[in-house]
Protein backbone atom coordinates (compact mmCIF):
# COMPACT_ATOMS: atom_id res chain seq x y z
CA UNK A 1 0.00 0.00 0.00
CA UNK A 2 1.57 3.25 -1.03
CA UNK A 3 1.72 6.01 1.54
CA UNK A 4 1.79 9.69 0.60
CA UNK A 5 2.83 12.09 3.34
CA UNK A 6 2.17 15.74 2.47
CA UNK A 7 3.80 16.95 5.67
CA UNK A 8 7.22 15.40 4.99
CA UNK A 9 6.58 15.47 1.22
CA UNK A 10 7.24 11.79 0.66
CA UNK A 11 5.83 9.06 -1.53
CA UNK A 12 6.46 5.60 -0.03
CA UNK A 13 6.00 2.35 -1.97
CA UNK A 14 6.60 -1.33 -1.32
CA UNK A 15 8.26 -3.67 -3.81
CA UNK A 16 8.54 -7.42 -3.18
CA UNK A 17 11.13 -9.72 -4.78
CA UNK A 18 9.57 -13.18 -5.17
CA UNK A 19 10.94 -16.45 -6.53
CA UNK A 20 12.07 -19.99 -5.68
CA UNK A 21 14.68 -20.76 -3.03
CA UNK A 22 18.26 -19.76 -3.92
CA UNK A 23 17.22 -17.88 -7.09
CA UNK A 24 19.05 -14.73 -5.99
CA UNK A 25 16.45 -12.44 -4.42
CA UNK A 26 18.70 -11.54 -1.49
CA UNK A 27 21.67 -11.16 -3.85
CA UNK A 28 19.68 -8.58 -5.86
CA UNK A 29 19.13 -6.51 -2.71
CA UNK A 30 22.73 -6.95 -1.56
CA UNK A 31 24.00 -5.64 -4.91
CA UNK A 32 21.63 -2.67 -4.81
CA UNK A 33 22.74 -1.94 -1.25
CA UNK A 34 26.43 -2.17 -2.16
CA UNK A 35 26.14 0.13 -5.17
CA UNK A 36 23.85 2.83 -3.79
CA UNK A 37 25.11 6.08 -2.27
CA UNK A 38 24.93 6.08 1.54
CA UNK A 39 22.54 9.06 1.59
CA UNK A 40 20.06 7.23 -0.66
CA UNK A 41 19.76 4.07 1.40
CA UNK A 42 18.97 2.91 4.90
CA UNK A 43 20.28 -0.12 6.71
CA UNK A 44 19.65 -3.48 5.03
CA UNK A 45 18.02 -5.97 7.35
CA UNK A 46 18.21 -9.72 6.75
CA UNK A 47 16.23 -12.05 8.98
CA UNK A 48 17.98 -15.29 8.10
CA UNK A 49 18.71 -18.76 9.43
CA UNK A 50 22.10 -19.85 10.72
CA UNK A 51 22.89 -21.11 7.23
CA UNK A 52 22.14 -17.68 5.73
CA UNK A 53 18.85 -18.71 4.13
CA UNK A 54 16.11 -16.07 4.36
CA UNK A 55 13.89 -16.91 7.32
CA UNK A 56 11.35 -14.09 7.19
CA UNK A 57 12.45 -11.28 4.88
CA UNK A 58 15.24 -8.97 3.75
CA UNK A 59 14.46 -5.28 3.84
CA UNK A 60 16.18 -2.38 2.11
CA UNK A 61 14.84 1.20 2.19
CA UNK A 62 15.89 3.20 -0.85
CA UNK A 63 15.40 6.75 -2.12
CA UNK A 64 15.20 7.16 -5.87
CA UNK A 65 15.13 10.96 -6.07
CA UNK A 66 12.48 13.66 -6.11
CA UNK A 67 9.45 14.29 -8.28
CA UNK A 68 7.91 17.77 -8.02
CA UNK A 69 9.40 18.24 -4.56
CA UNK A 70 8.26 14.85 -3.28
CA UNK A 71 10.90 12.33 -2.23
CA UNK A 72 10.26 8.87 -3.68
CA UNK A 73 11.07 6.16 -1.16
CA UNK A 74 10.91 2.48 -2.04
CA UNK A 75 10.90 -0.27 0.56
CA UNK A 76 12.35 -3.39 -1.05
CA UNK A 77 11.49 -6.73 0.51
CA UNK A 78 12.39 -10.30 -0.37
CA UNK A 79 10.35 -13.33 0.65
CA UNK A 80 11.82 -16.61 1.93
CA UNK A 81 11.91 -18.82 -1.15
CA UNK A 82 11.83 -22.23 0.49
CA UNK A 83 8.49 -23.96 -0.05
CA UNK A 84 7.65 -24.47 3.64
CA UNK A 85 7.80 -20.74 4.45
CA UNK A 86 4.55 -20.05 2.63
CA UNK A 87 2.82 -18.43 5.63
CA UNK A 88 5.62 -15.86 5.82
CA UNK A 89 5.45 -15.15 2.09
CA UNK A 90 1.75 -14.32 2.38
CA UNK A 91 2.44 -11.81 5.15
CA UNK A 92 5.14 -10.02 3.18
CA UNK A 93 2.89 -9.63 0.14
CA UNK A 94 0.41 -7.58 2.18
CA UNK A 95 0.31 -4.00 0.96
CA UNK A 96 2.57 -4.66 -2.02
CA UNK A 97 2.76 -2.01 -4.78
CA UNK A 98 4.98 -3.89 -7.24
CA UNK A 99 6.43 -7.37 -7.70
CA UNK A 100 9.70 -8.66 -9.17
CA UNK A 101 9.72 -12.37 -9.96
CA UNK A 102 13.31 -13.61 -9.89
CA UNK A 103 13.64 -16.82 -11.86
CA UNK A 104 16.60 -19.19 -11.65
CA UNK A 105 17.77 -19.83 -15.23
CA UNK A 106 19.24 -23.28 -14.52
CA UNK A 107 17.45 -26.14 -16.27
CA UNK A 108 17.12 -28.12 -13.03
CA UNK A 109 15.20 -25.23 -11.43
CA UNK A 110 12.58 -24.85 -14.13
CA UNK A 111 9.89 -26.71 -12.17
CA UNK A 112 10.76 -24.75 -9.02
CA UNK A 113 10.29 -21.49 -10.97
CA UNK A 114 6.90 -22.56 -12.28
CA UNK A 115 5.77 -23.71 -8.84
CA UNK A 116 6.91 -20.43 -7.25
CA UNK A 117 5.15 -18.36 -9.91
CA UNK A 118 1.90 -20.26 -9.34
CA UNK A 119 2.37 -19.76 -5.61
CA UNK A 120 2.84 -16.01 -6.15
CA UNK A 121 -0.37 -15.77 -8.15
CA UNK A 122 -2.33 -17.77 -5.55
CA UNK A 123 -0.98 -15.84 -2.58
CA UNK A 124 -1.76 -12.53 -4.26
CA UNK A 125 -5.28 -13.67 -5.11
CA UNK A 126 -5.82 -14.66 -1.49
CA UNK A 127 -5.22 -11.01 -0.58
CA UNK A 128 -7.38 -9.59 -3.33
CA UNK A 129 -4.62 -8.80 -5.83
CA UNK A 130 -4.44 -9.85 -9.45
CA UNK A 131 -0.86 -10.30 -10.70
CA UNK A 132 -1.95 -9.19 -14.18
CA UNK A 133 -3.06 -5.82 -12.78
CA UNK A 134 -0.07 -5.16 -10.53
CA UNK A 135 3.20 -3.47 -11.55
CA UNK A 136 5.22 -6.57 -12.29
CA UNK A 137 8.52 -7.50 -13.96
CA UNK A 138 10.40 -10.77 -14.42
CA UNK A 139 14.12 -11.30 -14.04
CA UNK A 140 15.94 -14.35 -15.45
CA UNK A 141 18.86 -14.63 -13.06
CA UNK A 142 22.07 -16.70 -13.18
CA UNK A 143 22.53 -16.24 -16.92
CA UNK A 144 26.25 -16.94 -16.46
CA UNK A 145 25.80 -20.54 -15.34
CA UNK A 146 26.55 -23.35 -17.82
CA UNK A 147 23.15 -25.03 -17.32
CA UNK A 148 21.20 -21.81 -17.97
CA UNK A 149 18.22 -22.44 -20.25
CA UNK A 150 17.72 -20.31 -23.36
CA UNK A 151 16.05 -17.02 -22.36
CA UNK A 152 13.38 -17.43 -25.03
CA UNK A 153 12.35 -20.73 -23.51
CA UNK A 154 12.17 -19.20 -20.03
CA UNK A 155 10.10 -16.32 -21.38
CA UNK A 156 7.62 -18.73 -22.89
CA UNK A 157 7.33 -20.70 -19.65
CA UNK A 158 7.39 -17.87 -17.11
CA UNK A 159 6.23 -14.72 -18.85
CA UNK A 160 3.18 -15.55 -20.95
CA UNK A 161 1.73 -12.04 -20.45
CA UNK A 162 4.86 -10.35 -21.82
CA UNK A 163 5.61 -8.06 -18.92
CA UNK A 164 9.02 -6.33 -18.99
CA UNK A 165 11.73 -8.93 -18.39
CA UNK A 166 15.47 -8.82 -17.88
CA UNK A 167 18.39 -11.21 -18.08
CA UNK A 168 20.58 -10.91 -15.02
CA UNK A 169 23.59 -12.09 -13.10
CA UNK A 170 22.84 -10.70 -9.65
CA UNK A 171 26.29 -11.56 -8.27
CA UNK A 172 27.95 -9.19 -10.77
CA UNK A 173 25.04 -6.74 -10.93
CA UNK A 174 24.09 -7.37 -14.56
CA UNK A 175 20.41 -6.52 -14.99
CA UNK A 176 19.85 -5.74 -11.31
CA UNK A 177 19.25 -2.00 -11.58
CA UNK A 178 17.39 -2.38 -14.90
CA UNK A 179 14.94 -4.67 -13.10
CA UNK A 180 14.54 -2.30 -10.16
CA UNK A 181 14.06 0.77 -12.33
CA UNK A 182 11.47 -0.97 -14.49
CA UNK A 183 9.31 -2.04 -11.57
CA UNK A 184 9.71 1.28 -9.71
CA UNK A 185 8.67 3.18 -12.82
CA UNK A 186 5.63 0.95 -13.29
CA UNK A 187 4.64 1.54 -9.64
CA UNK A 188 4.74 5.32 -10.05
CA UNK A 189 2.83 5.17 -13.34
CA UNK A 190 0.21 2.98 -11.68
CA UNK A 191 -0.09 5.41 -8.76
CA UNK A 192 -0.54 8.27 -11.20
CA UNK A 193 -3.21 6.33 -13.02
CA UNK A 194 -4.93 5.83 -9.65
CA UNK A 195 -5.81 2.30 -8.69
Amino acid at each position, binding site marked *: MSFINYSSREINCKIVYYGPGLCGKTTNLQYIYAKTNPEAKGKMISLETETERTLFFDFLPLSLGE*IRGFKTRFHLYTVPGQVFYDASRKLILKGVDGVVFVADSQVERLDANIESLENLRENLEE*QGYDLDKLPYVVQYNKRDLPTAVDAGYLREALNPTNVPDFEAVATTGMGVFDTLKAVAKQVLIELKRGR
Partner: protein
Amino acid sequence: MNSQLVLFEEEQKKIVQICDALHRDACAKAVFLVNRDGQMLANSGQTVQMDTTSLASLTAGNIAATGGLAQLLGEKEFAIQFHEGERDNIHISLVGQRVILVIIFDERSSLGLVRLRVRRASNELVKVLEQINAKAAQNPGHTVFDEISDEDIDNLFG
Protein backbone atom coordinates in the same frame (compact mmCIF):
# COMPACT_ATOMS: atom_id res chain seq x y z
CA MET B 1 -6.98 -4.83 -1.53
CA ASN B 2 -5.62 -2.16 0.79
CA SER B 3 -6.34 1.43 -0.09
CA GLN B 4 -3.65 4.04 -0.38
CA LEU B 5 -2.89 6.02 2.77
CA VAL B 6 -2.66 9.78 2.29
CA LEU B 7 -1.62 11.88 5.24
CA PHE B 8 -2.16 15.64 5.06
CA GLU B 9 -0.46 18.29 7.22
CA GLU B 10 -3.47 18.84 9.49
CA GLU B 11 -3.81 15.20 10.51
CA GLN B 12 -0.04 14.76 10.69
CA LYS B 13 0.11 17.60 13.26
CA LYS B 14 -2.62 15.98 15.35
CA ILE B 15 -0.85 12.62 15.26
CA VAL B 16 2.44 14.19 16.32
CA GLN B 17 0.68 16.04 19.18
CA ILE B 18 -0.82 12.77 20.42
CA CYS B 19 2.58 11.03 20.23
CA ASP B 20 4.25 13.94 22.06
CA ALA B 21 1.63 13.84 24.81
CA LEU B 22 1.96 10.07 25.14
CA HIS B 23 5.75 10.34 25.29
CA ARG B 24 5.44 12.86 28.13
CA ASP B 25 2.56 11.27 30.09
CA ALA B 26 3.91 7.71 29.90
CA CYS B 27 7.46 8.87 30.85
CA ALA B 28 8.60 6.98 27.75
CA LYS B 29 11.92 7.19 25.91
CA ALA B 30 10.30 7.22 22.50
CA VAL B 31 6.96 6.81 20.78
CA PHE B 32 6.43 5.69 17.18
CA LEU B 33 3.39 5.38 15.01
CA VAL B 34 3.83 3.00 12.09
CA ASN B 35 1.39 1.76 9.47
CA ARG B 36 0.89 -1.97 8.98
CA ASP B 37 3.15 -1.95 5.94
CA GLY B 38 6.08 -0.70 7.99
CA GLN B 39 6.10 2.96 7.05
CA MET B 40 6.71 5.53 9.77
CA LEU B 41 3.87 8.01 10.29
CA ALA B 42 5.21 9.92 13.30
CA ASN B 43 7.66 9.68 16.16
CA SER B 44 8.41 11.50 19.37
CA GLY B 45 11.15 11.45 22.03
CA GLN B 46 14.73 10.20 21.86
CA THR B 47 14.72 8.96 18.28
CA VAL B 48 17.92 10.55 16.93
CA GLN B 49 20.16 7.58 17.78
CA MET B 50 17.63 5.05 16.52
CA ASP B 51 17.31 3.53 13.06
CA THR B 52 13.64 4.49 12.81
CA THR B 53 13.13 3.05 9.30
CA SER B 54 14.32 -0.39 10.36
CA LEU B 55 12.35 -0.17 13.57
CA ALA B 56 9.17 0.56 11.60
CA SER B 57 9.73 -2.31 9.18
CA LEU B 58 10.55 -4.87 11.88
CA THR B 59 7.58 -3.77 13.99
CA ALA B 60 5.25 -4.29 11.05
CA GLY B 61 6.82 -7.70 10.38
CA ASN B 62 6.36 -8.58 14.03
CA ILE B 63 2.69 -7.55 14.01
CA ALA B 64 2.11 -9.44 10.75
CA ALA B 65 3.69 -12.62 12.15
CA THR B 66 1.75 -12.34 15.40
CA GLY B 67 -1.46 -11.76 13.44
CA GLY B 68 -0.71 -14.96 11.49
CA LEU B 69 -0.25 -16.85 14.76
CA ALA B 70 -3.54 -15.45 16.08
CA GLN B 71 -5.39 -16.67 13.01
CA LEU B 72 -3.92 -20.14 13.41
CA LEU B 73 -5.37 -20.21 16.92
CA GLY B 74 -8.72 -18.88 15.77
CA GLU B 75 -8.14 -15.47 17.36
CA LYS B 76 -8.89 -12.32 15.42
CA GLU B 77 -5.73 -10.57 16.54
CA PHE B 78 -3.29 -10.28 19.44
CA ALA B 79 -3.72 -6.56 19.83
CA ILE B 80 -0.94 -5.96 22.36
CA GLN B 81 2.65 -7.17 22.60
CA PHE B 82 5.21 -6.45 25.28
CA HIS B 83 8.94 -7.23 25.07
CA GLU B 84 11.04 -6.85 28.19
CA GLY B 85 14.76 -6.15 27.92
CA GLU B 86 17.52 -5.58 30.47
CA ARG B 87 17.31 -1.80 30.08
CA ASP B 88 14.59 -0.98 27.61
CA ASN B 89 11.16 -2.43 27.01
CA ILE B 90 8.84 -2.20 24.01
CA HIS B 91 5.06 -2.03 24.13
CA ILE B 92 3.38 -2.56 20.76
CA SER B 93 -0.33 -2.22 20.11
CA LEU B 94 -2.63 -2.14 17.12
CA VAL B 95 -4.81 0.93 16.79
CA GLY B 96 -7.96 0.90 14.70
CA GLN B 97 -6.74 -2.22 12.85
CA ARG B 98 -4.65 0.07 10.70
CA VAL B 99 -1.68 1.53 12.54
CA ILE B 100 0.79 0.31 15.15
CA LEU B 101 1.68 2.30 18.24
CA VAL B 102 5.14 1.56 19.63
CA ILE B 103 6.37 2.81 23.02
CA ILE B 104 9.94 2.31 24.18
CA PHE B 105 10.44 2.85 27.90
CA ASP B 106 12.93 2.10 30.67
CA GLU B 107 12.90 1.96 34.49
CA ARG B 108 11.63 5.55 34.70
CA SER B 109 8.21 4.24 33.66
CA SER B 110 6.22 1.05 34.17
CA LEU B 111 4.11 -1.31 32.10
CA GLY B 112 1.00 -0.26 34.02
CA LEU B 113 1.52 3.42 33.32
CA VAL B 114 2.30 2.77 29.65
CA ARG B 115 -0.83 0.63 29.20
CA LEU B 116 -2.97 3.28 30.86
CA ARG B 117 -1.64 6.11 28.70
CA VAL B 118 -1.72 4.00 25.53
CA ARG B 119 -5.43 3.38 26.00
CA ARG B 120 -6.20 7.11 26.04
CA ALA B 121 -3.86 7.91 23.15
CA SER B 122 -5.34 5.07 21.09
CA ASN B 123 -8.85 6.51 21.46
CA GLU B 124 -7.58 9.87 20.22
CA LEU B 125 -5.69 8.28 17.35
CA VAL B 126 -8.78 6.37 16.23
CA LYS B 127 -10.58 9.71 15.84
CA VAL B 128 -7.77 11.11 13.68
CA LEU B 129 -7.74 7.92 11.59
CA GLU B 130 -11.46 8.39 11.02
CA GLN B 131 -10.77 11.94 9.84
CA ILE B 132 -8.12 10.64 7.44
CA ASN B 133 -10.59 8.08 6.08
CA ALA B 134 -13.31 10.72 5.73
CA LYS B 135 -10.95 13.03 3.85
CA ALA B 136 -9.94 10.20 1.52
CA ALA B 137 -13.63 9.42 0.86
CA GLN B 138 -14.40 13.08 0.10
CA ASN B 139 -11.46 13.40 -2.22
CA PRO B 140 -11.09 10.01 -3.87
CA GLY B 141 -7.99 9.66 -5.96
CA HIS B 142 -6.84 13.24 -5.45
CA THR B 143 -3.14 13.12 -4.69
CA VAL B 144 0.12 14.73 -5.66
CA PHE B 145 0.02 12.46 -8.71
CA ASP B 146 -2.54 14.75 -10.30
CA GLU B 147 0.32 17.23 -10.79
CA ILE B 148 2.98 14.72 -11.79
CA SER B 149 3.39 14.10 -15.51
CA ASP B 150 4.61 10.99 -17.30
CA GLU B 151 7.65 13.06 -18.23
CA ASP B 152 8.43 13.71 -14.53
CA ILE B 153 8.46 9.95 -13.95
CA ASP B 154 10.65 9.38 -17.02
CA ASN B 155 13.09 12.04 -15.80
CA LEU B 156 13.47 10.30 -12.43
CA PHE B 157 14.85 7.24 -14.17
CA GLY B 158 17.06 9.11 -16.63
